[in-house]
């Protein structure tokens, strides 16, 4: 941003001296920079104000009222902080937050370990690694809802392929366990699909990290006769760490919002064992129609993600600077 419009204006003024219809050009060009900046940016800002910022402000307002969207004509009363109090004291919501945290933890752990391992293996640059990288990417490009819906079929106890494969390798009868119907297995059913879908993403970012490590560091380590094990832990992992942390951040934010896959696979059930925050929010907002209260919940969620993400980014920057 060192070249402020004034500099450009000066330069254009400079060159105008050389161009023939100078007087007109001065005006057109002198004006146009500011006008163009304005013309270029305004539509985007207007759209974002209308569809991002305005609804957000509206939600903040609603969170202080008892408004219910299914009763648009009822009088709206301010209730102060009562919605926030209720949300924060609601045991169900805390359970939903725990469920979400459980998902975020396991999906990130699995995706990071598998994703990093894959990236490391792909970085051995075996023949055809570019092709197989593309193949591995495919699941993350697909619609979580549409594919998640089909996983419901794969998880069918009697006829599903998943149960069949498990029973083929373990001998457990395929109809003896229900991935989606059992309280203990249902969370894992979702974790498996999420890991299947998003490990490639973590892998890609890790791969970018591994490729950013210059060869000469390994060459130096080789000269010092550092073992491969030593090189891995004292060069590869620390140098790829900022990238790994970045992947964790992105996946963490995404999985905190997890909705599509859960609603289609289990709908939050059985009972409420897989009811993550987004599903509770949907229930409150679009089934119980507690619009004011669910707005308060939405804002609490936003502040929580935003706050956690910011703390995390600070930690990330520290790692980067090391």
């Amino acid at each position, binding site marked *: 941003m060192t070249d402020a419009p004034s500099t450009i204006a000066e330069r254009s003024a400079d060159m105008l001296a050389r161009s023939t219809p100078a007087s007109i050009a001065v005006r057109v060009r002198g004006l146009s920079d500011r006008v163009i900046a304005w013309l270029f*940016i305004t*539509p985007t800002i207007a759209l*974002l104000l209308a569809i991002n910022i305005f609804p957000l402000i509206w939600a903040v307002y609603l969170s202080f009222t008892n408004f219910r969207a299914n009763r648009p004509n009822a009088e709206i009363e301010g209730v102060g902080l009562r919605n926030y109090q209720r949300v924060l004291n609601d045991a169900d919501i805390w359970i939903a937050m725990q469920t979400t945290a459980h998902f975020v933890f396991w999906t990130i752990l699995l995706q990071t370990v598998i994703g990093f391992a894959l990236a490391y293996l792909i970085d051995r640059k075996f023949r055809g690694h570019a092709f*197989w990288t593309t193949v*591995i990417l495919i699941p993350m490009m*697909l619609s979580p809802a549409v594919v998640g819906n089909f996983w419901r*079929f794969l998880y069918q106890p009697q006829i599903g392929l998943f149960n069949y494969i498990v029973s083929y390798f373990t001998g457990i009868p395929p109809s003896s366990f229900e991935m989606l119907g059992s309280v203990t297995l249902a969370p894992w059913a979702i974790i498996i699909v999420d890991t299947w879908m998003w490990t490639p993403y973590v892998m*890609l970012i890790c791969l970018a990290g591994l490729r950013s490590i210059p060869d000469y560091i390994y060459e130096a380590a080789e000269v010092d006769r550092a073992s491969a094990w030593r090189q891995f832990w004292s060069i590869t992992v620390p140098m790829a760490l900022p990238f790994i942390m970045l992947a964790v951040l992105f996946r963490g934010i995404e999985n905190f919002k997890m909705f599509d896959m859960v609603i289609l696979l289990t709908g939050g059930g059985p009972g409420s064992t897989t009811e993550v925050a987004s599903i509770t929010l949907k229930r409150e907002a679009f089934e119980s129609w507690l619009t004011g209260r669910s707005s308060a919940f*939405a804002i609490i969620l936003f502040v929580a993600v935003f706050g956690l993400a910011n703390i995390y980014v600070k930690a990330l920057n520290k790692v980067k600077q090391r």
Partner: protein
Amino acid sequence: MSSVNTTAHSVVEPTPTAKRIAGAIVILYALVTMVPLAWIFLTSIKSPPDSISYPPKIVFTPTLEGYCNLFTTRTRQTPDYIQSLPRPTGTCDEITRGRNMVIAGRSNYWPRFGNSLLIAFGSTFLAVSLGTLAAYGFSRFRVPLADDLLFFILSTRMMPPIAVAIPIYLMYRQFGLSDTALGMILLYTAVNVSLAVWLLKGFIDEIPREYEEAAMIDGYTRLQAFRKVVLPQATTGIAATAIFCLIFAWNEYAFAVLLTSGSAQTAPPFIPTIIGEGGQDWPAVAAGTTIFLVPILVFTIVLRKQLLRGITFGAVRK
């Protein structure tokens, strides 16, 4: 490791054995993750009884029944009535009659698929156009509070879609935008434009300003310089951004399921609702899923370079 001096390759090059083992593991992983997708396709060409047989069938007679069921609505008829009909006019007609049913009409699949196309391409076009202009503006001119503004806008993406959907739902109801393609296009554009501006600003920052300044010295106006110098240079970046916007809009479910129900419904909320007689008609669901996934599959394979660049670029910048 000991043969550092005798081998031709550089010290950091993995040994052939290491490469082979790495390759085998990666290929095994890739093949395992392809199984669910292969199963979607196989199920789509199975007959309903074959699709729910135990053990799952890998060898079977392929049929188009799933696709027929996907595209049509059918009613059950008595065999006598079906006998009395004129000869079947097509494959689907024949298959349907074989199940003692007749085709009653077309299903909503293609209209929903059409909505998906319209909304995805419409919003991508808008997001990329607006995003390119705004990114250029943010990149080349001093805009007050630009960084804070960009960051804040980007951070609204951290909100769960359901949270965003509450006020949007109320606003759209007020303005008659509920269940309209326009409403969905505007919404997806707004969601994508923040990412588009952010990605594209990075790409445009990489283009040296000297190019435009040289063009302007040669007598171009700034607009001409933007069109003839900056835009061609930014093509790769624009393509990468467009792919991201398109994939998001194509795959999106949460907003679609809450804000559309009828005429503007896209395919993702529609596909899970496909049912047959007595439960979910899995071959039809698989057929719908296959058709829905094919464009993205082709996209991923054809445009993998831009895609890879976009993903890693986005990550490295932040």
